[in-house]
């Protein structure tokens, strides 16, 4: 065959590189999908062992208040009441979000509606920096400042849900604020102009138009903050007191799902019931983060329609 025809019938170097490049990027993508599946697979398998292998009952897991997985009760079932940490996790998260949301919305209104110049000059850089501060630093400051403060005003040891919620409040405030700012900035300018042209005051415009139009975005910011607070381990563990008891007051030492995992995973032996019970807690955390994710997805869809 003459060389020109041969050259034309062969695949060019370019085409070969193209195939190779495409294949490599495809492999990377398959890898990350497999990774996500593996995380769910591994943690679900380990987490469900407690129920299928160690005969734990799902009912006592969600309603029992005593946590000592190495012991068995009268029905020869392990004592795995996880209610104290479930309650702890939810109370800390909800309290932190309840306090943080009004402040975050106020700051966002200030930055977008009232004084964008001052907002961009003072608040924006501070908030951006604080989003990046590692959570252990928040935990350490909680230990050094917030715990003694709580002790002074409420007595007791100072460790407990209140201290945990305050630490999380400071931690998620920058996150919620910056996402709320984005949500309010996305509200079209002519909405505000139309409202002002009808004779509404600035506050009426903010309250009746801007906040309503930005509501799905603000909700997304709040849920995002909640999911961050719910999954935070070390900052909370350092200030909550780590007592696996039903919280009797906001200042009594209690615990959260993440704190129990952090404290005990190193002290149990793989394969024992105590260890399996911890993996069940990890599975619960995983499922909760999935729930938050689905809610955010749903809100994003609703926001896109309007």
């Amino acid at each position: 065959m003459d060389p020109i025809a041969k050259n034309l019938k062969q695949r060019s170097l370019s085409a070969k590189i193209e195939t190779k490049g495409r294949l490599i990027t495809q492999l990377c993508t398959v890898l990350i999908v497999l990774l996500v599946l593996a995380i769910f697979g591994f943690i679900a398998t380990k987490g469900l062992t407690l129920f299928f292998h160690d005969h734990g009952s799902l009912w006592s897991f969600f309603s029992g208040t005593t946590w000592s997985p190495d012991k068995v009760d009268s029905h020869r079932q392990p004592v795995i009441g996880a209610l104290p940490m479930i309650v702890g996790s939810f109370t800390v998260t909800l309290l932190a979000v309840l306090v943080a949301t009004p402040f975050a919305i106020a700051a966002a209104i200030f930055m977008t509606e009232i004084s964008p110049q001052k907002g961009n000059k003072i608040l924006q850089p501070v908030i951006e920096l604080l989003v990046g501060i590692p959570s252990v630093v928040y935990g350490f400051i909680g230990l050094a400042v917030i715990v003694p403060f709580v002790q002074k005003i409420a007595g007791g040891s100072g460790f407990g849900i209140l201290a945990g919620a305050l630490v999380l409040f400071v931690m998620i405030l920058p996150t919620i604020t910056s996402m709320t700012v984005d949500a309010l900035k996305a509200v079209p300018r002519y909405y505000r102009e139309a409202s002002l042209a009808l004779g509404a005051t600035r506050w009426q415009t903010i309250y009746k138009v801007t906040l309503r139009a930005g509501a799905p975005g603000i909700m997304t910011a709040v849920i995002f903050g909640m999911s961050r607070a719910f999954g935070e381990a070390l900052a909370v563990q350092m200030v909550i007191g780590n007592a696996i008891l039903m919280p009797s007051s906001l200042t009594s030492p209690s615990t959260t799902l993440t704190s129990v995992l952090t404290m005990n995973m190193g002290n149990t032996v793989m394969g024992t019931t105590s260890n399996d019970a911890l993996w069940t807690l990890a599975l619960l955390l995983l499922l909760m983060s999935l729930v938050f994710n689905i809610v955010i997805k749903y809100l994003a869809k609703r926001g896109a329609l309007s």
Partner: protein
Amino acid sequence: MNPKQADKLMTFVIYLMSSVIIVILMALLIYILVAGLPYVNWHFLTSAAKSFQSGGGIGAQLFNSLYLLVLSMLVSIPLSLGIAIYLSEYSQNIRVTTWISSAIEVLSSLPSIVVGLFGFLVFVVQFKLSFSILSGALTLTIFNLPLLVRSMEDALQTVSLSQREAGLALGLSRWETVVHVIIPECLPAIITGIILSAGRVFGEAAALIYTAGQSAPPLDFTNWNVLSLTSPLNPLRPAETLAVHIWKVNSEGLIPDASAVSSGASLVLVVVVLVFNVLARYLGNKLYKHMTGE
């Protein structure tokens, strides 16, 4: 109360709440600075940590943090670039792309302790890497991937379609267009994304407690034998990072100057993150100017 009074009142309330936030946040930063500054000196930054006495430094921890960061970046940058290129350039089936994006979002919303426990289960137990820098770096890669993929994908998307069409019209393959036209154009944005995620990785602790371990064996910085336990470069030695160190001295309380050590270490951590943020902006702008010739 008429609407005008309500407007005045609410404006005042918003001013008040915003000032409260500024006061809280500034107090936080000032506290970190004031509490940490007296303890940070050359000796503190370079000497080894003590287990039971006061006067220990954070030399090994600082090195471990940086080494882990570099190792995990070596794995996660090419991997996430590949995923980002696939999602933004190759993938044509919208449904598959949506599914992959959702998977990445789920990964990014997982609590870091769960990622750490997965790393413990897979790298430490199954692959028998034990508590080591390698396990830690691989776990940090999982933690870091979703963020990095998203920032790189956004960067690739900012390049206009006409650039891709121009490349294809010149007879370049899609891959050649990506490598020679699109990536150079959005390189500043990619680098900014990498540096910002580096800041996040540097301060991560929960994912590392059960993967890179909580102990820092003394390091001999003259030992370059990669297999020796005292060599700083050995990827199979346990390595406590700066962030883990802050957590550990506070929760165990074995050293008498725990609060001094953690004040100093917190300041170092925050300053490093700040440097990363400033660097990301500066380098991004500078590279952009250099490449566009403005």
